[in-house]
Each structure stands twice: as C-alpha cells, then as structure tokens.
C-alpha cells in the first residue's frame, strides 16, 4: 500500500456496523479458516483484498488459501489480492501513527474504486502491537477512532487478527472490545471496556476504571481529543467505578478539543457525579446530560 498523507473525509456516512471486526484465535487451523472465509467473501463481492502480515510469511498466506480451494495465485496475478508485510508497508516509516494510517485507508479505498473494485477489504495481523514498536501504544486509540473516522465513510471491511499466542489475553480483550463485531474465540471481559458508539461519534466505557486501567483510559482520552467529529459523547451507563485520575484524563481530553463544545457525558454514574462535586473545576469541560 502506498504511503500518503491524510486525505479529507468525504461527506456522508455509510452504515459501518459489522465491517470492522476483531478476530481472536489461538492456532493455525483457526487462522486459516478465518482467512479463507474472509478472502472468499471478498472475491465473491468483487472487492480488492489486502493482507498485512506481521509474523506470517506471505507465501504461507497464499498456500493456506490455495489449500482451502481458493485461486489465490490467480487473484494475485490480476491485482485483486495482495499480501505484504506490515513492516514493509504501514510500519515502514518511523513507527505507527494513527493519523497517517487513517489517511492511508482513504487512499487505498480510492485506488481500489479507481481500479474498478466494489470496495476494499483488509486483514491486519495485529501482533506487532505487543512489541516495542514506536507508536504501538497508540493501537487502542486507533482501533477506537476508526469506527467513526474510517468505516463510517468508506466501503471498507477489515478484520483485525489477534493471535493469543503472541499477545497476552488481557491486551487482546481490551483491543477486541474496541471493535463492534467479534469473531473467533470468546475473550474474557477486561476490567474496563472501551468501545465506539454504534450510531454517533463517541465512546462507551463500562466496568471499573482505576490505576490498573490507565492505559485504556489514556487511549480513550486520546481518541476523544483526536477525533475530527465536532461533538463527541461518552456513554457511561455501565461504568461501575472511576477514579479521579481517570476522570481528570478524560476531562483534559475534552478541554483539549479544538473549539469543540464540552464533552457530553451520558448516564454519568454516581462516582462521576461525586467526583465532579469534589472537583467542580472538571465540570466546566464535561457536560453531564440527563443529570
């Protein structure tokens, strides 16, 4: 995939439900099955298919498809299927940058359309997120943002492959929850779940937020402050607990939004209300609706 700067999002939204999925697996057989299902569907719909490998050799991807009865070589030859290494494509520069990556999706989708395909579908092996790659700590922020910033605007279907042999269960759970559709093995719910809202820009946080979940809260805060949408909402209906540090991080994110109105907090649970009583200065940047 070529590298390019951010392209402005076209106006309008397309239904994005079901097009950004987490796929959790823990053996090669499961991997091959998910791969075959995904590629077969793409070929049938006349879409361009990109596979971004992390630890899997590109040749192995093609062999697995061939073994599943798919004419992978033919698809590669006519330019419909491409298998490349993330390290040579979107991770080739100075590391992972969510903003740059979002721009790349716009470019790649446009190129697929220009080449006559009905859409773009991509598989990404996400195991690099557990290594010390520059920017890897922004992976959750990225996963949280793209539902609204990419899938709501582009005819793109993407499956994010999470191999439990290469990433710890806790991290897989947090990342998988940032997708609205899940495939593969069930994953245990993390202490704090953060997901995009289905029908409007914003995030849903549920569970228990504390010092132990600070990375997930920081990612949520980064997703809120970096989002392009003029109004962001935070649905906290199922949040059982939040500590002062987490609320302060979210309030800082709200304060950092360019010219935006305050962050709308829906269904603020009692600990949020109590902390806003104790720290009224945070109240100016978060607007608790249905108070």
């Amino acid at each position, binding site marked *: 995939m070529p590298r390019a700067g951010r392209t402005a999002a076209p106006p309008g939204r397309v239904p994005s439900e079901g097009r950004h999925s987490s796929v959790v697996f823990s053996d090669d057989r499961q991997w091959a099955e998910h791969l075959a299902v995904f590629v077969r569907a793409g070929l049938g719909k006349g879409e361009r298919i990109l596979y971004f490998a992390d630890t899997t050799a590109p040749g192995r991807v093609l062999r697995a498809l061939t073994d599943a009865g798919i004419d992978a070589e033919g698809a590669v030859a006519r330019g419909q299927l491409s298998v490349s290494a993330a390290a040579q494509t979107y991770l080739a520069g100075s590391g992972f940058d969510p903003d740059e990556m979002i721009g790349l999706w716009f470019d790649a989708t446009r190129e697929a359309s220009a080449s006559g395909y009905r859409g773009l579908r991509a598989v990404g092996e996400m195991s690099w997120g557990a290594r010390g790659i520059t920017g890897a700590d922004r992976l959750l922020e990225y996963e949280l943002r793209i539902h609204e910033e990419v899938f709501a605007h582009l005819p793109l279907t993407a499956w994010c492959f999470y191999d439990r042999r290469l990433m710890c269960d806790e991290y897989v759970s947090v990342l998988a929850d940032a997708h609205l559709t899940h495939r593969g093995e069930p994953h245990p719910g993390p202490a704090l779940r953060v997901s995009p809202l289905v029908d409007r820009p914003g995030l849903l946080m549920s569970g*228990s937020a504390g010092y*132990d979940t600070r990375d997930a809260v920081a990612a949520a805060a980064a997703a809120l402050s970096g989002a392009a949408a003029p109004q962001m909402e935070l649905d906290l209906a199922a949040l059982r*607990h939040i500590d*002062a*540090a987490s609320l302060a991080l979210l309030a800082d994110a709200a304060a950092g939004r360019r010219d935006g109105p305050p962050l709308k907090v829906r269904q603020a649970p009692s*600990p949020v209300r*109590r902390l806003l009583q*104790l720290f009224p*200065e945070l109240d100016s940047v978060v607007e608790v609706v249905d108070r």
Partner: protein
Amino acid sequence: MTTYGPIPAGPGRQAAFYHPALFYGTEEEYLDGVGSFVRDAVSQEHSVLVAVPGPSLPLLREAVEGSEHVRWVDMHQAGRNPGRILSMLQEFADQAGEHTQVSIVGEPIWVGRTPAEAWEATRHEALINLAFDGRPVSILCPYDTALPEEVLAQAYRTHPVVGDPGAYRASSRYTDPHEVCRDCDMPLPEPQDAVVVPFGERGLALARDRADRWAAAAGLSPASRTDWLLAIGEATSNSVRHGGGRGTLRMWRADGELVAEIRDEGLLADPLTGRRRPDPRATTGGRGVWIMHQVCDLVEIRAAAQGLVLRLHMRLE
C-alpha cells in the same frame, strides 16, 4: 518553638500565626471567650470563619454583631472526619488572600467524639501549626472542660498558647507537631472477623469489586458505597504506585460502621499529605488521600517504618 508572654485574647493580636486553645466550662464562658474573639475579628475586618458544633452556632450568631460577615460552618458535618478540617481552613485562608488577616474558630473535638476520632483531631491540631506557620492567621480552638483529661492534656501540647476567657499564656507543654503526630499513632485494635483481599496491580479491579459487593451485602447505602469505593480505589492504587507495588485490603463491620484497612510498604513522608485541596489533574500532591478524607467518616493513619496503614471508616446509616 516560639515562646509567648501573656497575650490578650482579642484586640492587638499580631499579624502572625496565633493558635490558642480556649478552655471553657459553661455556656457563658464559651460565649465570652469565643464571642469576643469573633467580635474583635469582625471589627478589624478580618476574614472570619467559625466552624463549631451545630448547636453552638445560633448562640454565637446572636452574640456577634455583623454576623453576616462571618462564614458559619457546622463542624459536626464539615469536621465529621477530623482529617478533612485542615483542607477547609487552608482553603478559607487562601481565598482571603495573602494580605488579609484571617481569623478562624475551629472546634474539632466535642463531647461524644470517639477516642479514635479524638486522636485524629489531635493530629489535626498539631498539623495546624505546620500548615500555617508564618502566615497571618489566628485560629482559636475551644475545648469543653468536660472532655476527657487525656484530650485536654493533648490540647496543651498542640497549642502554643492556652487559656480561658480571662487570660492567655504560652503553653509550657507545647510540643513539636511531628512528635505529637507520632504520639497519635496509637496501636490499632485487631478486628474480630475481617475479609482479607491481597492485591497487586493486576488485582486492583478485583479488589474494588470485592469491596463493592461486600459493602452492599453489609448494608451500606448506594450513596455511601460510592464514597466507600472511591476511597478504597484511591488507597489501593496508592499502594501499587507508592507502597511497594502491592498491599492488603481488610474489611470488617464494627459498631455501626464498616471499616476498610489498606496496608502496604509505603511511607508517608509529609504528614500534611492530603490536607490541602489538590489540583485534580496533578498526579502528585495528595489527591488520593484528600479524597479519602473528604468522603470517609474517619480516616486513621499509621505511618511506621515498616509501612503505612490506613483505616477508612464509613457509617451505616
């Protein structure tokens, strides 16, 4: 230690830190001693805060002309947990500004305080001397002579100046605040049946959920449970951040209240930690301890060389 000669209670007080204990035996003595202090402060246009037990408020209001210039606070509520009083006093003094003389009446101990509360209130009295050292603030602390001997004896150690409505004098028993704080670290009684939850960083969420479920089963109201969980969440995360990466949470039911104890290998280097309103965004500065003091009915602190013990009390109402 500063020494004082005979000091008048009212007019002529210097624009320096002044922290007398007033011992009173009757309502008349109370109104005389406290009333004259407040009247003088009002007449000299000081910023005045009176924080005394609720039943004394109407008496004093009536005795003070210009009472609308005074901020009146029911200490039964605001000072239920003695550990939160100093934050209120410092906030009041800060709001008055650097160049305004501040006069405060603070009565943190009343007849009926439990011994545990009285020890934490004594610690608070000692810490006043550290917090306001060198500032133009006068804090008069009335002590009912019906209080236990031990409580009254401590007042002589925590106040540089002592007296009765007639005359004030330097306290010969005034003691370094750090030493008083150490003396307030009375041995804590062992609970009969405690639920024990060891935790590390990975177990923090589980510890919070256990604390929430246990308190619900023990009958704590939803509003108090929110506070209970906020306090325990801050204390356990402090153990992980500053107390050796782990700790032990114990919970038990006592006389009309629930108690959570958080024990770790931490140190509390500054006894004033958590006794000043923090910036909610600052990761240092005692935010967690301040929250505990605000939301709990009592916080007992034992800072020893081998570690830190916090006991958070929440009344069952």
